[in-house]
Structures are given as C-alpha cells and as structure tokens.
C-alpha cells in the first residue's frame, strides 16, 4: 500500500500546482490567458512541458512492453526517428506557427488555416477530423490511470476508482489552471520522467546482478538472441516507421503548445535538447524491456514467458479463447512495474510509481487542446464570443473540460481498452497524413482551401478504410500474412499479425504521399488565395 500512498501524495502535489497556477493568473477571464498562458512560458518550462506533452504512457510502459516482445528495434523504430523528425518539425513549422500566432493572434491551427486559405466551413471540417483523431487518447489516459492505480496498490484500489481519481485530478488542474497549470504540471512530470529512467536502470540493474550477465544469457539462448538485433522486423517496416513522427507536430496539443512560448528564442534550446530528452527516457525503458526477458525470478514475468512459449509451441491445439488469454498474459506493458515491484524497495517503488503515473496523465494537454479548439474554432467562430463575450468563452472552455472528462471516464468504464489502443494507432497515421496542411499553408503560396479539404477528407477516409479492413479481415498467425495482388515482389495489400501493409510498408506511407499529391493536384486546379493574403504569409 506504501506505493499507492506515495502516488496519492504525488496527485495532491499535481493538484496544488494547478490551483496555484490559477491563483497566479491575473487575467482569469481572458481566453489567451486561460488557453495559452498569455503566450508567456519561459525557456525552461517551455522545453520540459512541450516534451512532456508529447510523451504519453507509451513512452514508458508501451515502449518497454514493445521491447519485451520485439527487442532493441523499439528504440530505432520509435525513439531515434522521433529524435530527428520532431525537433526538425519544431524548427521548421513550430517557429513559423509561433510567429504567426504572435502576429495575428491565432490560438489554434484552424484559425491560421481559415485566414491563410480564406475558408470558413472547410476549417470546421478540419477541426472535426482533428478532434475525432484526438479523443481516443483522452480515453486511453483515463484507462491508464485506472490500470496503474490498480497495479500499484496491489489490486486494493479498483480500476473504476483509480480511473475516477486520476480523471478528477487531471480535470481539476486543467479546469483551474488552464494552459499555465497544465504546463507547470507537465514540467514537474517531465522532471519525474527523467529521474525515473536513471533510477530504474540503476535499481533494476543492481537487482539483476548487473546487465552484462543478463545480456550474455539472452545472446546465448536461440529463443532470445534475436531480441538483441532487429531481425524481427523487415527493413521496409523500419523505414515506414519514420513517417509516424510526422504526426507529432500535427497533433493539436503540440502545435497549440508552440504558441505558448514567450519568445521565439525559446525554441532554440528545445530543438537542441529534445533528442537528449528522448534518449534519457527511451533508452532505459527499451533496455529494461529487453533485459526483462532474463528476469525469470520475477513470478509475473516468468508467467509471461511461459505464456509466450505456449503460444509459440502449441498454437495449433489452442482454442481462440485460450489464445486470447495467453496473449493477455504474455503482453509486456506492465514489465517495468513488475521489475520495480520485485527489485526496488517499497518507498522507491512508490516514487517510481509516481513517475509512471506522470506518464499516464499526459492527457491533460489533449483535453485542454480540444477545449481550445471547441471554444475558438466553433464557439467563437460561429459568433458565440461576439454574442456572449470573452468571459463566457472561457467559462464555456472550462465547462467543456468537465463534460469531456466525464464522457471519457464513462466510455473508459464500459468499452474494452483494445478498441482505443487500435484507434490511437490509426490516429498517428491520420495525423501524419494531415502533414500537407501545415506544410502547404506555411511553405507553398499556391496551396488552396480545396487542396486542404481534399487532404483532410482523404486522411479521414483512409483511417476509416484501414480500421474497417482490419476489423473485417482477421489477423493471421504470427509469422504469416494474408495478401492480395502483387507488385515488385510484394503483396499490394496484406493483413499482417500486427496490422496492415501496403507493398510491405505501413499504411502511413501511402496515406501521407497520396495526401501530399492531393494537396498539390487539387490546389493547382483551383483558384489560389488573393495576393494580399499571400503577401502577409510570405513577406521577406
């Protein structure tokens, strides 16, 4: 129970930070203050909170679970590619969005699109698609809170109660503190993340008797040697994954965060240090996930390894229900928690549990982003602000935060997590396919609203098509695939155990390329915005 108590103290600290931010605010009824912290974040808070905003529970729990099953490839797939693409996007796109926000008062990307392409309802379509892709994240965040509280308390705190506590805490500090509270909490959480990696590595390494022995044993066993290489994934799959981090800057919470910096200079340290932060969090998480395959003295991990062995050797004789149960047991998302439970002293397990909770609670900025989009792109745009005033707009934003959190909580109680895990996977591809919107608006004078609409509708349709395909065609057995058609020695489209492939690539590659082509072709066929608008965006 001690770890659960430490986590409760952590939640109280987070709540206090949010409410303290509310008390520090001198313009509580002004939209720019509530939604963007008055564009006043300093360099340290901007770096850490922006990084924290982009790190979800997956960075700690999911990455170690993925590495537990797939090996060191997880780092190259998800961390080092993001370490290049995300800061580059911040450098090229984030700085430009910041400048336009400062100059013209934009608070959401859609406000910029509406102005840049002189469109109104097309902007609403973009808002709706962006929001639909973001909602599953918020639900996953609530679910993660329930699951983690349940695991940390040894089952004493039920899932529904743990989820309710986490949802209530997040809702409260977003409600009171707005962007300022969210940024401060994210800063605090990122510091915890960074400490977590180093401490967990030291404690678990000491507990396992050093990593050299564990790695040598992994290398000498035929069943685990592949975990130390990348042979479990194809080179095409590895290449495809570099398209996924394109989604990052397109997430509304990320691009809105870019507007909160006090000065553009703050991006400098963020861009340079972002890869180092990625390294500090992902390397321990991935390495510990791989090393967990030798932690056979941990009963829960031993059970996972047994389940994996049974699935590999007796798959033909197992019933579908048995396979589902074995896959659930073998899943590695909780390996870090299990390692800490076994190797760390109770008080330290509590502190590290708080670090895990910090990762799980990353849905705060997503809730605030949706609230900002609703109040700015819908409420204010359709005359709500003009009729009822700015204070009513901020109140609407706060009410939206409550309504959204309650809906997410109710859904989290009633629907299985697997659905939302899948939806989040699709969301990454969807946001990557929306990349031509920002690139077109900021770098291509000839881009038009119709090109933007084509690109948005394509992204939405492609996400739905892949989701339907994967629900209609069952996943084949591990190591096999069901394919249709053939080109360049690859199936044109195939159902793989992990998802879908197009010419051996992840769907995100054709989705993004076709989206860019649509932006180009449709823009060339339609009338460009007037010269005055173009001059405002492309002045020297």
């Amino acid at each position: 129970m001690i770890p659960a108590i430490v986590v409760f103290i952590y939640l109280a600290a987070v709540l206090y930070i949010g409410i303290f931010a509310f008390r520090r605010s001198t313009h509580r009824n002004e939209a720019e203050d509530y939604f963007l912290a008055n564009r006043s974040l300093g360099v340290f808070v901007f770096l850490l909170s922006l990084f924290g905003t982009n790190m979800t529970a997956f960075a700690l729990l999911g990455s170690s679970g993925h590495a537990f099953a797939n090996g060191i490839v997880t780092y190259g797939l998800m961390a080092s590619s993001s370490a290049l693409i995300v800061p580059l996007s911040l450098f090229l796109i984030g700085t430009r969005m910041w400048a336009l926000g400062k100059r013209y008062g934009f608070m959401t990307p859609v406000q910029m699109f509406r102005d840049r392409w002189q469109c109104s309802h097309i902007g609403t379509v973009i808002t709706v698609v962006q929001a639909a892709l973001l909602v599953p994240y918020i639900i996953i965040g609530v679910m993660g809170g329930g699951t983690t509280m349940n695991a940390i308390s040894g089952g004493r705190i039920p899932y529904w109660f743990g989820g309710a506590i986490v949802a209530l805490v997040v809702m409260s500090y977003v409600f009171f503190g707005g962007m300022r509270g969210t940024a401060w909490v994210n800063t605090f959480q990122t510091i915890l993340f960074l400490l977590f990696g180093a401490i967990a590595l030291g404690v678990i390494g000491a507990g396992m008797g050093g990593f050299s022995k564990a790695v040598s044993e992994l290398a000498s066993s035929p069943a685990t040697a592949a975990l130390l290489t990348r042979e479990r994934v194809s080179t095409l799959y590895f290449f495809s994954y570099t398209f996924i981090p394109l989604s990052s800057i397109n997430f509304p919470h990320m691009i809105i965060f870019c507007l909160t910096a006090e000065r553009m200079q703050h991006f400098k340290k963020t861009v340079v240090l972002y890869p180092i932060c990625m390294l500090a969090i992902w390397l321990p998480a991935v390495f510990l996930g791989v090393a967990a395959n030798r932690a056979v003295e941990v009963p829960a991990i031993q059970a996972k390894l047994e389940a994996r062995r049974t699935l590999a050797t007796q798959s033909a004789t197992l019933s579908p229900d048995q396979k589902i149960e074995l896959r659930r047991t073998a899943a590695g998302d909780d390996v870090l928690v299990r390692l800490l439970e076994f190797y760390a002293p109770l008080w330290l397990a509590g502190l590290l549990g708080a670090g895990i909770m910090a990762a799980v609670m990353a849905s705060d900025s997503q809730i605030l982003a949706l609230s900002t989009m609703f109040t700015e792109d819908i409420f204010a745009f359709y005359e709500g602000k003009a009729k009822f005033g700015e204070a009513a707009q901020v109140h609407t934003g706060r009410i939206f935060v409550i309504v959204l959190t309650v809906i997410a909580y109710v859904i989290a109680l009633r629907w299985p997590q697997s659905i939302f895990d899948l939806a989040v996977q699709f969301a990454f591809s969807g946001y990557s396919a929306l990349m031509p919107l920002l690139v077109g608006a900021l770098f291509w004078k000839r881009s038009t609203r119709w090109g933007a609409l084509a690109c948005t509708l394509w992204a939405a349709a492609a996400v739905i098509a892949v989701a339907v395909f994967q629900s209609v065609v069952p996943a084949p057995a591990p190591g096999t695939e069901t394919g249709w058609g053939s080109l360049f020695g690859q199936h044109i489209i195939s159902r793989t155990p992990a998802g879908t492939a197009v010419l051996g690539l992840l769907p995100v590659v054709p989705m993004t390329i076709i989206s860019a082509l649509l932006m180009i072709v449709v823009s060339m066929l339609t009338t460009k915005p007037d010269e005055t608008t173009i001059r405002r965006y492309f002045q020297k």
Partner: protein
Amino acid sequence: MKRSVLVLLVVALYLLHQDVWFWRVARPFIFGFLPVGLFYHVCFTLAVSLLMWLLVRQAWPAHLEAPDKSQEDRKP
C-alpha cells in the same frame, strides 16, 4: 555555412537512420551490455542533437521575429 549543406546533412542523417549493416548483429556489446545496434542509435540520437545545434546556429529564421508592420493588429 550554406543552406544546401545543411539540407544535405539532414538528408544524410535520415539515411543513416536506416542502418541495415547492423540488422542481424548483436555483438560487440559496448560497455559489456549494450548491443552494437542499440549503441549505434544512441550515437545517432546524439548526432541529431548536434545537427540541431548547427541548424539553430546557422539557419535560425530570425526574420520571423520581426513584427508585420502592415497588419500588426489583425486578429482572426
């Protein structure tokens, strides 16, 4: 430094991410425990940070910080 050189460096680093040469190799273990493929990507991450430092030094879009004189008070 010329902008084209910086663009080439970015492209080169993107290509270096696809390190097929360490695909099926685990040894040597750097520091006794880090598989060489993982160590390569650690070095890659540090190289990215260095490249970002270079971009910030050589290609910082300082012109964006200047206010737009013609439309300064324009709001959406």
